[in-house]
């Protein structure tokens, strides 16, 4: 036991001091936040200053009401109009194409944010082109669409002799709110972003944790093999003790990382008033975290210890990483339909259980039997995984030169 602790302590202390660990510790949350939050924040951010928009109107009828409505309907928080519509020089009756060159130049120079080209009003559809450098401004796009549609609708109504007030009456504004009902029947406010974000964050955390510590594990075994420290190690303690110590030390390392990230998360939650997960969910997620971590530790040991070169190690770890990416790819479909059978089936595959659960729990709490069964499956898998990994480890760590074939490794597992 003392030797296991000595190995664990060594693995932990030496890795905690390493630059790679420190970089990962700070960089990972930054990347995660960067990928998950910033785009959505930017997309929904209100403008701070007025934007100039141009119009090239081929119909001669839409430019004026468009300018009027855009400038009066949307205001900045300080009361100034959000958009200023600038007319683009246009010879009356000439085709719109003649004005485009000039307008493009003004967009390019930053003089105007962008401009609309209305080539004509069709009997059914009207195509409006909005040219800009910032094609990602969805809010502006939606507003232009709504405004022009309104103007055209009014003009048509007039043509049909309908009172514009009637038209206003006919317009229905609908605000759809999705409310999540939890198992106990309480209602919970839910919005897509929040659910997506929390599921995503947990998956990514697990993903990064497993990938980084898996790599650390494989690399440390490889280092010990390549310089033959391993001979001294296995003459000092049994391979089982060595492996147990490594798993323990690296788990401690992983949970240091997670603990640190969780702290950041809690701080961020308090700061921005987000309530990402309920405590029960968090507890369950931690259980799956631990189980997933241990299971993958066994997988990485089994896969990593017979390797003899850095290249092979990189190859094997990248295959394992691909397995972990599956649930991340499935995040969106799963969110749309958390009850889908195939999602449930995937949850019971030990390699995928933790990430699938991290995905499912924030969206819709799985049934109790599912949770109990998956935890049971995980524990059984960890047990057998560790036993098999131990057998591979014992022989594998002394292998140098040519890496063993799969059939050989399977024989190690069988013969114990």
């Amino acid at each position, binding site marked *: 036991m003392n030797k296991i602790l000595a190995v664990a302590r060594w693995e932990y202390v*030496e890795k905690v001091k390493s630059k790679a660990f420190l970089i990962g510790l700070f960089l990972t949350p930054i990347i995660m936040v960067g990928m998950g939050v910033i785009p959505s924040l930017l997309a929904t951010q209100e403008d701070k200053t007025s934007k100039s928009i141009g119009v090239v109107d081929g119909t001669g009828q839409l430019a004026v009401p468009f300018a009027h409505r855009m400038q009066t309907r949307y205001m900045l928080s300080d009361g100034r109009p959000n958009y200023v519509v600038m007319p683009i020089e246009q010879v009356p009756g000439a085709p719109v194409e003649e004005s485009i060159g000039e307008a493009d130049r003004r967009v390019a120079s930053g003089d105007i944010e962008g401009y609309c080209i209305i080539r004509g009003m069709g009997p059914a559809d009207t195509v409006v082109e909005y040219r800009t450098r910032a094609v990602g401004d969805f809010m502006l796009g939606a507003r232009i669409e709504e405004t022009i549609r309104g103007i055209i609708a009014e003009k048509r109504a007039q043509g049909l002799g309908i009172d514009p007030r009637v038209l206003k009456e006919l317009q229905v504004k609908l605000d759809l709110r999705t409310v999540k009902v939890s198992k106990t029947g309480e209602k919970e406010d839910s919005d897509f972003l929040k659910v997506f974000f929390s599921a995503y964050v947990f998956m990514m955390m697990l993903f990064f944790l497993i990938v980084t510590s898996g790599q650390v594990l494989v690399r440390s075994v490889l280092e010990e093999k390549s310089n033959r420290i391993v*001979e*001294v190690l296995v*003459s*000092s303690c049994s391979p089982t003790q060595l492996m147990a110590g490594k798993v323990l030390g690296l788990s401690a390392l992983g949970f240091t990382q997670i603990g640190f990230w969780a702290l950041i998360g809690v701080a961020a939650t308090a700061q921005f008033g987000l309530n990402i997960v309920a405590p029960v969910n968090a507890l369950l997620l931690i259980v799956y975290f631990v189980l997933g971590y241990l299971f993958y530790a066994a997988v990485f040991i089994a896969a990593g210890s017979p390797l003899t070169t850095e290249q092979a190690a990189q190859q094997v770890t990248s295959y394992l990483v691909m397995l972990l990416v599956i649930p991340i790819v499935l995040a969106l479909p799963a969110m749309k339909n958390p009850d889908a059978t195939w999602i449930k089936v995937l949850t019971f595959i030990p390699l995928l259980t933790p990430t699938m659960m991290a995905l499912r729990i924030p969206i819709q709490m799985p049934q109790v039997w599912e949770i109990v069964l998956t935890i049971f499956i995980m524990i059984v898998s960890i047990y057998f995984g560790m036993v098999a990994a131990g057998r591979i480890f014992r022989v594998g760590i002394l292998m140098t030169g040519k890496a063993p074939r799969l059939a050989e490794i399977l024989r190690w597992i069988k013969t114990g």
Partner: protein
Amino acid sequence: MTGDPAMLQVKDVRKAFSTVVAVDGVSFEVHRGEIFGLLGPNGAGKTTTIRMILNILPPDGGVVTFDGHPFTDQTRNLVGYLPEERGLYRKSRLIDTILYFAELRGMHRGVAKEEAMKWLKRFGLDDQALRKVEELSKGNQQKIQFITAILHDPALVILDEPFSGLDPVNQVLFQDIFDEMKQQGRAVIFSTHQMEQAEKLSDSLCLINQGRMVLGGSVREVKKRYGSNSLHVEFEGDGAFMEGLPGVHRAFLYKNAAELDLTENAGVNDLIAGINAKVAVRKIELREPSLHSIFMQVVGGPSASGATP
């Protein structure tokens, strides 16, 4: 040395890797207070034998016992090991590395620290305890590894090619430590392919060639059994005639020097007189057989391939 029972007994161990038989029936005993040389050319099977002793590799056949018992977890704390290929954690500090290996051999951390500083001081490295391993020269790294092999006061120390890459000053330092350990009643096994080293240091030896044990026993016995005395002559003139002198079994002729292996009952005085009569002798010396010549005779000589005694 012969009275007490052997601390380590290696009996007829064998090991084969897929196509090659690396060790084929090696047996020897090592006693407390004995320095034991494991000799043989490169690839003879020395390292594999050591790995089997240390339970790193399970032997395919034969047994290894410590005081009559097989290798157990307790045995791990009684042995120290310096592998042939030098390696340490490059990014770690000296002192941390030493303490880690000491702890793995069951040593208490506090005690280990004190001992470690003592040894570092002896090797002139005490001011570098906090430096990283990779900042050290190869020779100094070897010293650190040596310290990790002996720090926990092992009853048996196994050193695989301990002198390779060491400068003469540090070779002497290592040898002094060997002698101390011998005085303290520890057993030391070291492997080498350098016969002079083995001859100077070891009490007993085992010579392995191509996985087979070629000869073994105390150095004195071996010399008596396999070696013949030799006459070393330094002279001026043409020494070619010496080859044909009566009592000369084999001659190695150099410019102005000769080494003559003598037959068992050669008349040394007649021989010396015969040489004196033909060339101007500057120095003449009768020597015991060197391990080197025995080694060459048994392993490397022209008739050596099948020369298992």
